[in-house]
Structure formats: structure tokens, C-alpha cells
């Protein structure tokens, strides 16, 4: 079942188009990464999910409910960690968790939630004394306390230290394991790559691509790099012979390391054989996939052209 289903969803302010005919399906239990530069329209899409803003045209169903007509049910079954907020600075963290649980109509277990987000022992302190990272943990705790079926995270790593980021990723995976659908919006590509099953790339209001990261790499071509370490510095003719192989798009050498961009996975073994034929001994082989960052740049630049 699709937890989020957008059909031709658009949002315009006068002449300005913020979202342009978005078609998107996010399935139950998946961790979906939503990528895009600032101003791409990610937060606007999230706002429309929860009826904080209304679309200009198109349909949007969330958890099987119309996002506008049945927004109350949608918000009761969802939880959002927004990007940029302040908490009630004079109230203790525990009270925030209790408030979120009460409003959501679920049992309040503040100690358990506080421990889960790494705030064990800090629940009785006023939130004004918290660091930015602690506030982010507390807000995440508020979202978890409401026990949502759909977890919407907008730049969730903001303010978190490396331990906090790791803990966040663990929580996201745990939630997905118990059937919660996670909508993970971030510009930090490595985090999206670390936890997400599929990603959508949004730029200037247009959804440029939606797929698993591997599939996106394949679709864009030149999806991997072959790094060969050889026993001697390669001569120009050796590199030229590698360039002539079908499936090799670029060759670069740095000392005894040859870097080959491969559009065809099958060309890798040919390249190793060709290198040996050129009188070089291959001492190490490493294959690097293109990073999500490169993919992201490729897609957004292609969208701009």
C-alpha cells in the first residue's frame, strides 16, 4: 500500500512555481530519502503532506486519507520533526514528551522515550538549558512519543554530533523494522545514502528522479570507478589503449594508480587484462561506486540544462 501518493501535485505562488506536477509513491515500511538543494520545494511538499499549506492543483493521499479533507487523521497518524523550531524553553524535557503523547492519545512513557533519544537523566532540566543537539533529540523524542505510522524528518541531523547522527540512523532503522514509513528529507547526502531504501531528487520544484540508489547509478551511466594499483608508472600508450576499450569513459593516472570510469560493468576484467598486456603488474584492485553526491549533482545539473 502506498503511504504517500501524490498525483500531479503542484504549488504556485502567482508566477512562481514551487512544486511542478509531482508524481510520487512512497510504500509502507520503506525509508524514503527526499533530496534537493535549498529552495527546491522539499519543505513545501512536507507542508502539503500535513495540510500546513494547500496545493494549487493535484491530489495527495497520505496513509490512505485525503491530505486536506482528512488532515486531522493524517496528522494524528503522522509525526513530524520540522526544520527550524523553538521549544518551550522554561519547561522540562519530560513535559514536552508527555504533551506530545497526550495530544496523540497514546500512553506516555517519557523515561523510555528520553532514554531512546539519548536524554536519559536530562528530562527534568528546563529546555532552555539544552544545547541545539539536545533540543533536536527532544523534538525527535516528541515525535516518537506519538507512535506515528508515518515519520517525517526534515533535516533531522541538524545540530547533532556524530554520535547523535548514528543514534538517529539506528532509530530510523528500528522504526522502519517495526513497520513505520519514514520520509527522510535532507541535503546531507551521505545520511540519506546510509539509511534510505529509495530516494527522490527534487530541484526547482521538479522531481527529477525516484528510485533505489543503485538503479539511479545505473540509469545515469558511468556508474562506477575502477582503481588499479600497478607496480610501475604507466606510460601514455598504455593509458591510450585502456581509453580505447568500449565501456571506459575516462582514464586518469596518478603515480602508480590508474583511475578508470566504467559505464559498462563487464569492461572491468577487460581493463585488468589490457593493463597486464601492457607490461604492468596489477597489485591491487578497488571498485568505487559513484557517490550519491555525484549522482545528485548529475541529476540536478541535467535538470537545470
Amino acid at each position: 500500500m502506498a503511504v504517500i501518493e501524490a498525483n500531479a501535485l503542484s504549488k504556485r505562488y502567482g508566477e512562481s512555481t514551487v512544486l511542478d506536477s509531482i508524481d510520487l509513491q512512497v510504500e509502507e515500511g520503506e525509508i524514503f530519502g527526499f533530496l534537493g538543494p535549498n529552495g527546491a520545494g522539499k519543505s513545501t511538499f512536507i507542508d502539503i503532506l500535513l495540510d500546513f499549506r494547500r496545493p494549487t492543483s493535484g491530489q495527495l493521499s497520505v496513509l490512505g486519507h485525503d491530505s486536506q479533507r482528512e488532515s486531522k487523521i493524517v496528522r494524528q497518524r503522522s509525526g513530524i520533526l520540522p526544520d527550524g523550531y523553538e521549544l518551550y524553553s522554561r519547561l522540562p524535557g519530560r513535559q514536552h514528551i508527555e504533551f506530545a503523547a497526550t495530544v496523540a492519545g497514546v500512553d506516555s512513557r517519557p523515561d523510555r522515550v528520553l532514554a531512546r533519544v539519548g536524554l536519559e537523566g536530562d528530562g527534568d532540566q528546563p529546555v532552555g538549558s539544552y544545547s541545539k543537539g539536545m533540543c533536536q533529540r527532544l523534538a525527535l523524542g516528541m515525535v516518537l512519543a506519538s507512535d506515528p505510522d508515518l515519520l517525517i524528518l526534515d533535516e533531522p541531523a541538524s545540530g547533532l554530533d556524530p554520535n547523535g547522527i548514528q543514534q538517529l540512523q539506528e532509530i530510523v532503522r528500528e522504526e522502519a523494522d517495526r513497520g513505520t514509513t519514514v520520509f527522510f528529507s535532507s541535503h546531507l547526502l551521505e545520511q540519506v545514502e546510509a539509511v534510505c531504501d529509495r530516494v527522490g531528487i527534487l530541484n526547482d520544484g521538479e522531481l527529477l528522479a525516484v528510485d533505489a540508489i543503485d538503479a539511479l547509478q545505473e540509469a545515469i551511466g558511468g556508474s562506477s570507478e575502477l582503481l588499479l594499483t600497478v607496480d610501475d608508472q604507466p606510460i601514455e600508450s598504455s593509458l591510450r589503449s585502456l581509453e580505447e576499450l568500449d565501456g571506459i569513459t575516462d582514464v586518469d593516472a596518478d603515480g602508480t594508480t590508474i583511475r578508470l570510469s566504467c559505464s559498462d560493468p563487464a569492461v572491468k576484467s577487460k581493463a585488468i587484462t589490457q593493463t597486464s598486456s601492457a607490461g604492468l603488474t596489477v597489485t591491487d584492485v578497488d571498485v568505487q561506486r559513484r557517490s550519491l553526491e555525484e549522482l545528485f549533482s548529475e541529476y540536478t545539473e541535467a535538470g537545470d540544462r
Partner: protein
Amino acid sequence: MNRKNVLSIAKHDFEQLIRSKIVWLGIVVLTVYLVYEWHTSSQHLIGSAWSIMIDPFVIMSPLYAIGLGYTAIAGERASGRIRLSLGAGLTRPELVAGKLLSRFVTLVSVLWLPVVIAAVIVTVGWQPTEATAVGFLGAMVVVTVTSTAWLGIALGASCSASTQLRSIAIGGFLVFLFLYAWQSILELLMFVQTGSTDLGIDITTGLVDIFDPAWFPYAVRVNPVNAFEATQWYVPNLLEALAAGETIDAAHGPNLFGLAMLLVWGTVPIAIGYYRFIHAELE
């Protein structure tokens, strides 16, 4: 609307407010002001003492109500906290109702606590007053109704505005209009109609019911400041007379209209702001 949710956000907001140093500073300032006013005017406190005793509220109650009201919803939007609250399952009507409840309870506490403290201090220290309990309580009811009217204006502005700056600008404009400009505007209209601005009586005391032009005492009381000044005399007089089984000779029409205007100010701006907020997009 879920009553549990309304009480939950109201409790959350109230507990945040009562921990505010500014709220406690307001209580201290009003207490000191009341003790000073009551002490210095104690030799005059006979019969209608309540009218002198609540004079400080003419200025203080709009300031306190606007200060408490303007951030109620606009502050939630500005801080981004509204996304957490609504995202947790709270509805916009529940948020407005909860905020109204918490701000009203805080306002009543901020106004009545100094009155109680000052009354104890003045009574124990100087035993000055011959004011009747009925009259004084009646006057304080008027103070509360007037403050609620100002809170309604501020909360309505807070619901209507997308930023705190706009909210305080709307509230500030109305305070300026009603404290300093309203009377002049009406007098100008009166001058155009009659060639004079002199009524020869205190228009707000409400003890006379014949005016020329007849619309003037009503138009004056559209202003919540004037409505307060009129009803602070009228309501306690009326209550005292009723308690004694007597009647009073007063301008019932304009004064009841003034009382009704206070109720209108306490509700209509909230209704308008509520409608705008329900249909507003969060930015």
C-alpha cells in the same frame, strides 16, 4: 474539538508563562502601583472608593492583555513550534482555544493577584477604605471584562497575523487609536454636525441620559477604554442599588451598549482571527 487536547495545550502554555520573569515583574509593578495609588488617595476613599481604586487598570489592563495576547498564535508560527504541535495531532481550533484559555487565566491571575495583595497591605496598614465589597467586586468584574476585551483584540490580531511584528503592530495601533485618537475623531464629527464639541458633562459617567447629538454616548463607548470608564461607574452603582433594593437614575442605554461593546471586543476579533488562521497557510 477534543477537550483533553485543549486543556493539554492550555496547561503547557500556562506553565511556560508563569515561569516568565516578565509576568512576575508585571505582577510586582501592578501591586506597587495599586498600593501607592490606594494609599495616596486613601483620604478620599468614601462611598465610591472602588472607582478610584481601579483607576490604574485604565492603562495597565490593555498593556497586559496586549502583551499576553500578541504572541499567542503568531509566536507559535514564528518559532516553528506550531508544526510540532499540529504535527502531533492538535487541530487549529484546539490550539486557539487552548491558547485563549491559558492567556485568559494568566491575565486574570496577573490582574487579581496584585489586587488581593494590595488590598491586604492597604487594609492592614492603613484601614482606609469605606468602599463596599459589592461595589469593589463589581468594579473588578468590569476590569476583568475590559481586560478580556483587550485580550480578544490581541489574540484576534495574533491569529490574523503571520508574524509577531504584524500582530503587535495591529494591537499597538488599536491601543493608540482608542487611548489617544478616538475621542478627537468623534469630537470632530460632532463639531461638523453641531458646531460645538462641548457637552458640558462627563460623557462616560453615565449618570445622565440626555445627550445632543444622541449618537455620541454610543459612539464613545465603541472604544473599550471609554466603555470601561463608563461601566466602572455604572455596574458597581447598579449592583449596589440592586443589593439595597433600590433603583438608579442612569443612562442605561449607552452604558449597557458599552458593556455589550466590551463583550463584542472580547469575542469578534477572536472569531475573525480564528477564521483567518483556520484558512491560513503556514510559512
